[in-house]
């Protein structure tokens, strides 16, 4: 065992935190809010250690030999991952807000004790996936996150639908990881090692098959067409906070680990770019078409998540196919804003569910008058996702748009047309939902008791912060673009 412990420190903090918090909370019988506060502290500690690595990236990148673990063909090597750091910083900030939200959101769930440790485990697993250079290790961490995420999805196990969703996620995700395991087998047959610190010197047919297996596995986890069918069932029925985390951050981050593995296994950048761009079109179209007319908020947001996966794939695809740095910047920026907006939308819909016991927009007509602040924030989230100017989503779309046009190539322009069609169709989805909050129908469907605006601050604070981010990134994107350019400078995709 040798190398820099700093690499694994965030994961260690998160994992240890998960067990300590569970034990302490169990023994001291702490209440939900206190446990949420503990969890926030643990994540803040992990965040600080990540940020300290992130700011010293120029120094770290100059020492590529730095690693943690055991070298050699069977060893476990963990190295710095610039993209991983960026994604984890975004993920942890979002998860801290989700945890604060859960401080109230879970107040009626007796099983809150396991909820927070599970969240910490998914975060630790996600970080581990990025720093792993050993594919078997990557597989194990992938399984860890899958199991923890399944438990979170089926968290309200007294509801049959939640169990079904958790079960579906477990089956589908395990299928994905099984395919990856198959890939590992092929790689081992071809290479005699599961280490993947750099691009294979002489990729043969077997390693290409291994790459295809990983491509399939990650695509399934990211919800890429035609492996997207589980997305609405799972995110549509999981607790809103978890759906926000998984749909906004977790499944999207798979799109950033996918190229790292596949390219090292011998897939060419052109092949990867073609795959991403071609399938992005399906995702964009299917996501936006299917969300039309869906009144169940979480299900609606899940369909829109499929479209957003398409936007990210499109950006990344351009980057690989045309070797365009601008497209990578656009994708990273898009990842950041989608994570924020998606999470905002899921959390706001969670507030409706929490107080009114429904997430059916038809029944929630006029709810905006009862909860004006939440409705405003939800509207900001939806408008941001729709790409309305001066909100974060518009800048993201503008950047992807610019990247696609900068190529001047027919293939990217054709995909851009699909992107535009998807945006227009998406408007037809987002706007009715947004507007229904404010407009009551002729028949009184307001079958919920009025709250007179009394919404818990635990719910309001995270939602307000996320809305503030959506607006501030939209109005002043400069520092955020600088941030993704900084990541771009040091990352190697």
């Amino acid at each position: 065992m040798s190398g820099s412990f700093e690499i694994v420190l965030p994961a260690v903090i998160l994992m240890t935190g998960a067990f300590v918090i569970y034990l302490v909370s169990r023994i001291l019988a702490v209440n939900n809010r206190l446990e949420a506060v503990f969890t926030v502290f643990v994540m803040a500690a992990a965040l600080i250690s990540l940020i300290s690595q992130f700011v010293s990236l120029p120094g770290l990148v100059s020492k590529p030999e730095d690693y943690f673990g055991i070298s050699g063909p069977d060893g476990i090597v963990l190295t710095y991952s610039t993209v991983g750091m960026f994604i984890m910083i975004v993920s942890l900030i979002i998860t801290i807000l989700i945890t604060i939200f859960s401080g109230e959101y879970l107040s009626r769930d007796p099983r809150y004790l396991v909820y927070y440790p599970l969240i910490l485990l998914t975060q630790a697993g996600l970080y581990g996936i990025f720093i792993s250079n050993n594919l078997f290790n990557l597989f194990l961490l992938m399984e860890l996150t899958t199991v923890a995420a399944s438990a979170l999805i089926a968290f309200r196990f007294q509801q049959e639908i939640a169990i079904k969703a958790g079960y579906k996620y477990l089956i589908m995700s395990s299928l994905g990881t099984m395919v990856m395991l198959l890939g590992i087998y092929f790689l081992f047959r071809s290479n005699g090692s599961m280490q993947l610190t750099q691009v294979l010197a002489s990729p043969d047919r077997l390693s290409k098959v291994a790459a295809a297996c990983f491509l399939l596995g990650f695509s399934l986890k990211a919800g890429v067409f035609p492996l997207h069918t589980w997305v609405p069932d799972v995110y549509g029925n999981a607790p809103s906070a978890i759906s926000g985390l998984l749909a906004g951050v977790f499944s999207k981050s798979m799109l950033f680990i996918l190229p790292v593995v596949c390219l090292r296994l011998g897939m060419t950048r052109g092949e990867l770019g073609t795959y991403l761009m071609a399938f992005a079109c399906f995702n964009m179209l299917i996501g936006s078409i299917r969300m039309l007319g869906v009144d169940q908020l979480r299900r609606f947001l899940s369909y829109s998540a499929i479209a957003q996966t398409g936007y990210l794939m499109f950006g990344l695809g351009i980057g690989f196919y045309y070797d365009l740095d601008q497209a990578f910047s656009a994708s990273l920026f898009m990842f950041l804003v989608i994570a924020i907006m998606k999470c905002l939308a899921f959390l706001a819909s969670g507030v409706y569910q929490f107080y009114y016991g429904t997430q059916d927009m038809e029944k929630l007509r006029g709810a905006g008058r009862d909860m004006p602040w939440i409705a405003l924030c939800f509207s900001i989230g939806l408008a941001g996702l729709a790409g309305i100017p001066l909100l974060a989503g518009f800048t993201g779309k503008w950047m992807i748009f610019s990247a696609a046009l900068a190529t001047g190539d027919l293939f990217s322009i054709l995909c851009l047309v699909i992107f535009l069609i998807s945006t227009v169709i998406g408007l037809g989805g987002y706007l009715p939902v947004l507007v229904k909050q404010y407009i009551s129908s002729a028949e009184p469907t307001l079958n919920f008791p009025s709250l007179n605006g009394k919404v818990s601050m635990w719910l309001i604070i995270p939602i307000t912060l996320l809305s503030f981010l959506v607006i501030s990134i939209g109005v002043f994107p400069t520092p955020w673009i600088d941030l993704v350019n900084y990541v771009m400078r040091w990352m190697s995709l």
Partner: protein
Amino acid sequence: MENYELLISGITLIPLVGVLVLLIWRKATKNQAATIGIISEGFALVIPLLLLSVLKRNGEIVFSFPWISNMGISFRLSLNWLSLVFLLTEVLVTLTAMIYSLGEKTGEKNSNAYYALLLLFSLGMSGTTLADDAFLFYIFWELMLIASVLLILIWGHGETRFRVALKYFIVTHLGSLMVLVCLITLFVNFGTANMTEWMLQSSSLPINTQILLILFFIIGFSVKMAIFPLHIWLPDAHTVAPMPVTIILAAAMLSMGTYGIIRFPFAIFPLENLQHFALWMMIAGLISEVYGALMALAEKDIKRIIAFSSVSQMGYILFGLGSMTLRGMEGAIMHVVYHAIVKALLFMVVGIIVTVTSERDIQKIGGLGFKYPIVCVCAAIGILGISGMPPLGIFNSEWMIFAGGFDSGVSVALTVITLVGSLFTVIYGLRFFGSIFFGKRMPESMAERAPLALTIPTLAVTIFLIIEGLLPGPLLTWAMRGLTSFIGGLR
């Protein structure tokens, strides 16, 4: 930075302050909210007038500071002769609508939000005319749309307002996206969003790209102009919107499409590449002119009659632009201004008729002439105005548009047909006026007097229309200077 450059930002920032005050002052009565709205909008009228002397000296006043520097985007506003014409038209229309609004019921509840949105709507339009950066232009362009959609959604009439607002948003947004495609293509090719620089670099683009961009720009902006068959959003949106919003939509917002066509394809690309579209624009203008007029003739709802007349009038403007001659385009710009005044006047008259009779079906209204003589006179002048009767303004602009058509060298026959087609305007105008103000008095119960709060602004606009028609000098000069500064080589 000179003081007058800072003043330009006031045209957008002061109404924005008004919006913020209104949003904070939630308990403002309608009168209080209107006062804030009118005062802050007033600045948008006064500032450009104050700057006239500087504009005469410099030709253009620019306010600029860096915004998204790593993407080459800045907050850049430019007041020039072209934007001045559109800006003044739009601000005057908004002020009229705000004052007119005091005499009717819209916005009695949530007055602060109502006036804040009217201000935002106007801010979107002022920003669109002033923006000299494509990113900024698009933001203001969309702000205009969002504010108007919200106004229709919240204060629109009837249960259909939801569907209508959605249709309005999606159709016009489609047009906006076509414009966005062009803006980003130019942004990517030139590496800057500065619209003035685009004018200098455009010839470096391949001709095919130029042709495609011109096509997209023209179609995209034609949606906003409601040119047939892209007008489908207009009749419903104009009918469902409350009257003050309809006035702004018809009299001011439609003209933004014209501004867009002049400011982008016409100003950026060389005239010889634009010439490919001359015939098609003129044909589209002619079809729109005749179709709008025929639909206005067939409609029974008095609000829809005037709404369809907008489709027809925008046809003239497109025809004028399509002529690609100095006279035709100058006529088109003047038509924008005159149409704004006449259309505001006609909708104001319709508003009074609907208020006093509570009826919108033209077959159920009649004989109002002697009961409301002042309204009758205003309507008569409005109808004569839209029919192109001298000395009212539209006569001047139509004269120039047709002259441009004859000069264009495209097809004399086309211009003759368009000229003859204008007869339909006279027919629907006379039908409108005759059925409402003459014949048997209908409906049986109606208000004794037309509300003064509505009649006075209507009368004021009527007088303004007459003055503008008699004194077209300044407008003509501004339009000429604006055109020649943006488009070179016009005959």
